[in-house]
């Protein structure tokens, strides 16, 4: 079964008098363990799609299945819960809490976990993950004391704290130089090798090249790469069926 499956998702912004359709029926699937790039020029609906995929926003119509759960019908609090334990976010501008240590930043999402976790256990998990991203000796540092690459690694550690099956990276290298970009992308690569599904949202072809598949958006529709074997078949349903059976074999 796929981790993500979108079926004819539309999103229309209601600006009072005008209705602005941003997504005009997007269907796609992402299997477990994939490293996918979501690409497209600005205005292509890429960000809106990412917001919907990341459960930050609701689609106007269509179905969204994440990890076997129907997301499209969830209310705000339920979506918050899904974000907390199924999705990790990495942002372009890191979004770390200032004057808060790397460790505290990493374990922050645990505050909002459904079941409260003892303080000691939280710290243990935080340390473990910071070690995994190679910041063992930077745990007590504040974001202002860390380089851009280190900050982004703290952000990655934070996104991993709840062991989510899915990781969103929104232009993760946008604020980094090419060398640190490579390090960060390598980290995504290795995380992907560990079995985490990663969606890289980017407009840069260089970053897109790290992925095994690129989903390209254009004018509110998926231009290419919606399914594992990027096919543009007129009979979408048949393709979906084919994909499903094929992915089943792959998995």
């Amino acid at each position, binding site marked *: 079964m796929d981790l993500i499956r979108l079926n004819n998702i539309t999103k229309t912004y209601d600006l009072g008098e005008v209705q602005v359709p941003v997504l005009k029926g997007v269907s796609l699937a992402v299997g477990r363990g994939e490293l996918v790039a979501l690409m497209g020029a600005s205005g292509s609906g890429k960000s809106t799609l990412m917001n919907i995929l990341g459960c930050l926003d609701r689609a106007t119509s269509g179905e969204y299945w994440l990890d076997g759960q129907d997301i499209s019908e969830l209310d705000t609090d339920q979506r*918050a819960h899904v*974000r907390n334990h199924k999705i990790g976010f990495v942002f372009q501008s890191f979004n770390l809490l200032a004057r808060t240590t790397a460790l505290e930043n990493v374990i922050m999402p645990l505050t*909002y*976990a459904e079941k409260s976790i003892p*303080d000691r256990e939280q710290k243990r998990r935080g340390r473990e993950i910071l070690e995994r991203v190679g910041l063992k000796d930077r745990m007590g540092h504040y974001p202002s004391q860390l380089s851009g690459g280190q900050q982004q690694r703290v952000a990655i550690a934070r*996104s991993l704290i709840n062991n989510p099956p899915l990781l969103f990276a929104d232009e993760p290298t946008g604020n980094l130089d090419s060398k640190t970009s490579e390090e960060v992308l390598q980290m995504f690569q290795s995380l992907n090798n560990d079995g985490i599904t990663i969606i890289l949202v980017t407009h840069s072809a260089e970053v897109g090249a790290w992925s095994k598949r690129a989903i390209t958006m254009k004018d509110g529709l998926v231009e290419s790469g919606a399914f594992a074997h990027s096919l543009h078949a007129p009979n979408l349903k048949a393709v979906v069926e084919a994909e499903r059976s094929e992915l089943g074999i792959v998995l």
Partner: protein
Amino acid sequence: MRSIRTFTTAVRALRRNVMRAVLTTLGIVIGIGSVIAMMEIGTGSSNAMQKTVASMGANNLMVFPGQARAAGVSAGQGSSVSLTPADCEAIRQECPSVQAVAPVVWGRTQLVADGKNWVPNSMSGTTPEYLDVRQWPLAEGQNFTDRDVRNRATVCLIGQTLQRELFDGHSAVGKEMRVNNITFRVVGVLATKGANMMGQDQDDVLIAPWTTIKFRVSGSGYSQSNQSVTTVTASGTNSISNLYPSVVWSTYPTKPSLQSLDSPMPVRFANINQIVLAAWNADQIQPAIEQVTSLLRDRHHLRPDEPNDFDVRNLAEFMKVLGSTTALMTNLLLCVAAISLIVGGVGIMNIMLVSVTERTREIGLRMAVGARGADILRQFLTESVVLCLMGGALGILLGSGTSWIVSATLGWPTASSPGAIVAAVAVSATVGIVFGYYPAWKASRLDPIEALRYE
């Protein structure tokens, strides 16, 4: 667990901008501080005032004999002869609300000393406890004793006016004066009390054992005290009618003893004019009235349908004054507190709104990693409550400090008031919740996408 984390998060957020947090709480600090200071100073002065009013007799009750009524004709208040020293003793022993009690008999006669004479406004025969009831300290000398009362000793206390008029203001302690041709020794001089509410000079007074006044000065000997009608006379001031001191002319010839035996008079014990008593405090006055009433009804063998043969009176006017002053003070404090706390609260609200705007991205991030609106609401609410509680704590310190300084430098009476401190904590928490709610609610309603994009 979660609440501790919310608390530490709030503290950390506040620590990011210590100066601003301190300035924000200044309103609360001043508000709570002024309330505490005024409360402590107010309680102190109110205590002092209560003490003063108590010494004026606010806690005092007076028991008078009731009216004598025969064939529908009333002889007026106090005309019956119903109170005895034994009643007084019973009140002392059986009424828990009564702090002190003393019997009073009145006399009125001329005093002579040092070649001067004077008729005091009030001449009371009583027990040593009378001074406790009236809360009347001695300026000099000492009180007479219970033994003096038993022995009908010719000792007395005099007021400042008497000392001035008879002894030219020199110390009268140990000096002698004649009262109705009996020589009294002055054992103590009372402190100045001034005029009472009716303008009567309370210092124009002589206080002596009641037995002495009743049996020696008023001239009613033991034999007469056993008759059904007692004459309280001020006889003897006229020297012509009193050739032989202490002998009262009787209108009728004395009964021969045989005749007395043939027609026995009902035995009546020495009666007294008044019983004065003091309740422990203003709240105990009502219970004291009830206890005394039921005790005296019982002792006087009154049937349930019979009216009281005595009257219990209190100084209701004083009590009203006392109550209204306290109420006024409390209301004044409440107004001041309310105004300053509203001002402080608006300050808190203002800064919390700024803080929410400033931390929009943080709120967006927290929402993206799974914080629900309720979590955000709780976090900001906690922050403003912590802010207000810190302000309240500082205010309590400030207020207590101020009142301490006031009492140390100006010598005003102050009293710490734990109630005010509890109220201060409760009020500052309430201000935090009330004025922090809107900003927190605003934060919780942010759209995470917008918030994350906010610059």
